[in-house]
């Protein structure tokens, strides 16, 4: 809700001038008096024409209305009007890196930071809106809604929100503090634990050194592979990528981690389509088009397209196929292209957080952002002043006409 505020509210007292003029004009034009020397002919005329009638007030003249409007505009220009939210609101930009999920005082760094943000908002009597810091622009009313989905925070995203009214929700004081935005850093001690997997082993950090825990890595399972043809070019590349990353295919004896899953959209083939990217192409059966408009498809971005149809889309932890690639053109481009996608969308195993993320986040600290400046640009005042001048000219011309 937009409200109007003024930089010089005292100037509004000058509104009394047009108001008084309007009242005077209204009184002057209430009725028009015609002075005559002899009322008797009028009395006689009124007697013979019927019942007495009260003179009806005349409407204010166009000139007087324009003059009053001109004065109002001039006074408003002097007062410096600006629009602002009726209830000031900060937009909280949530850090979505893994460190925010680390345990802190029986909760998490994220929960602690959110509590601090809410306390700061109460202190400044502002409302909060929430959004995840992963380049999106969807603003939610709760942090949970904002965090729906997965993603990676980049410094660029925070930097893009260095604006008045923005509040960064993070764990460590930013190394490059914002100029206009505020921030809430939950702080927190270092959290020991796994930082990486190597084959069947897990590498843990105990606060001082790295420890290899053998046979502690979870098995890896790629979901949905049954829907694809065995020994298809895609499966061959996937197997090569799993081997290169040291992943062990999961079995019942090990905890299983699913870095991503595969989904196939459509069932009936709709003909062969030649498609590709990154220097490769392949012919394959088109099954339809990947839909991106459903809630469950949020986070997917097109990866291979043919005209307006999305043949393959991918997002964190997911690959959707509406086209099954056959044998690709010769060369390594096919494998390199897919491997890059797998690296990009693969989710980290539960409990595996990089060493940098696990380090202590320092002291808790909060800084309120600069007030959201919803003011009209200063030069909007001269628009009002110009309007006043135009209205004044109109009043003069209406008066002279």
């Amino acid at each position: 809700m937009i409200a109007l505020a003024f930089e010089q509210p005292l100037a509004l007292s000058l509104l009394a001038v047009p108001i008084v003029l309007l009242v005077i004009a209204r009184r002057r034009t209430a009725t028009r008096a015609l002075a005559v020397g002899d009322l008797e002919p009028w009395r006689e005329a009124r007697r013979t024409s019927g019942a007495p009638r009260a003179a009806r007030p005349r409407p204010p003249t166009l000139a007087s209305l324009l003059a009053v409007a001109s004065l109002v505009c001039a006074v408003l220009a002097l007062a410096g009007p600006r629009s602002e939210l009726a209830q000031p609101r900060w937009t909280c930009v949530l850090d979505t890196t893994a460190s925010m999920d680390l345990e802190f005082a029986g909760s998490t760094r994220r929960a602690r930071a959110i509590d601090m943000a809410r306390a700061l908002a109460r202190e400044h009597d502002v409302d909060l809106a929430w959004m995840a810091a992963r380049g999106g622009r969807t603003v939610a009313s709760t942090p949970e809604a904002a965090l729906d989905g997965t993603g990676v925070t980049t410094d660029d995203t925070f930097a893009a929100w260095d604006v008045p009214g923005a509040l960064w929700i993070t764990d460590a004081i930013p190394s490059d503090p914002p100029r206009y935005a505020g921030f809430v850093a939950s702080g927190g001690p270092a959290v020991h634990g796994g930082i990486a997997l190597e084959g069947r082993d897990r590498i843990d950090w105990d606060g001082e050194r790295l420890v290899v825990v053998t046979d502690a890595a979870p098995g890896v399972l790629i979901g949905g592979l049954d829907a694809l043809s065995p020994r298809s070019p895609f499966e061959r590349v996937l197997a090569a990528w799993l081997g290169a990353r040291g992943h062990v295919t999961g079995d019942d004896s090990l905890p299983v981690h699913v870095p991503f899953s595969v989904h196939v959209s459509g069932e009936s083939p709709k003909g062969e389509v030649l498609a590709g990217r990154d220097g490769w192409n392949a012919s394959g059966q088109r099954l339809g088009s990947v839909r991106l408009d459903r809630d469950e498809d949020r986070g997917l971005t097109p990866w291979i397209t043919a005209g307006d149809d999305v043949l393959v889309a991918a997002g964190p932890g997911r690959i959707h196929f509406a086209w099954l690639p056959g044998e690709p053109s010769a060369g390594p481009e096919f494998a390199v292209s897919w491997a890059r996608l797998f690296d990009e969308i693969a989710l980290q195993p539960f409990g595996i957080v990089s060493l940098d993320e696990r380090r202590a986040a320092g002291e808790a600290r909060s800084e309120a952002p600069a007030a959201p400046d919803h003011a009209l640009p200063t030069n909007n005042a001269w628009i009002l002043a110009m309007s006043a001048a135009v209205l004044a000219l109109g009043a003069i011309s209406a008066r002279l006409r």
Partner: protein
Amino acid sequence: MPFGMEHDLELLPTVRFASGFRARAEALATKLARSRATSENDGRSWSFGAGDDFAGLRAYRPGDDPRAIDWTASARGDAPLVRMLRRARGGSEWIAIDSSLSMAIGPPAKLQFAAEIAAVLALLAWKSGALVTLVAPPTRARFVLTRSRAIGALFEWLETLVAHDALERGMSSLPRCDRATWIGDFAGSRAEDVARAAPRGVPFRALQILAPHEIAPHIDDSTRVIDPESGEGIDGGPEVLAEHAHALEARRRTLAHEFARRGGRFARASSAEPLENVCVRFVRP
């Protein structure tokens, strides 16, 4: 003026003659004097009555007023004879200029126009050798224009006139004189006012001056007609314009009738009419 009303007209209570008006008035008076002399030679000036001199008899001509026939002399001859009269030299003439507040109504202001006409009539009488007395009821202002007095003083005195609140409505009486002239708007005048204003046995004439908007008003639904003297008002409106015109004409007829009953003449003029036209029309025998 009641608060909340807008004066559509200015009240112009004073008199200011334009430069050159004196020469214009004197020229007009001279022209009228010549015109009257011609009429006298035609024998049609009998009506000025008392104060005129008998100049002789001549044969009746078609167009002569039957009342000018000298029946005694005619009985002695074969053809009807009419009396020829010459304006008596000297005598006394009173000119009354209504200076009540309603005369300030205009534009053009009625008082200004009345003063201009009074100046011409005074000069005309002065040229005929009359002792001219000007008064400005309801005030006690008075000016006597004698043969020896400078003409400039007449104009100076007329410029001292100011339209005042009417202390007493209607017309005041004039003393007995040889000729009398009333110039005013006759606002609210009744038959008895006219009788009081007209000295018995004295030839007199009355000129009613109205502002243009009093004769042909432009009014709308928001108009309230007011009398500045009394402060009274009445709501106007386009629907009463026709009735107003009828009432105004009825009033003109009533005044003309009342003055005629006493041997006087009555005329009405708009303050916007050319001075020359009004004077010629009013002075014409």
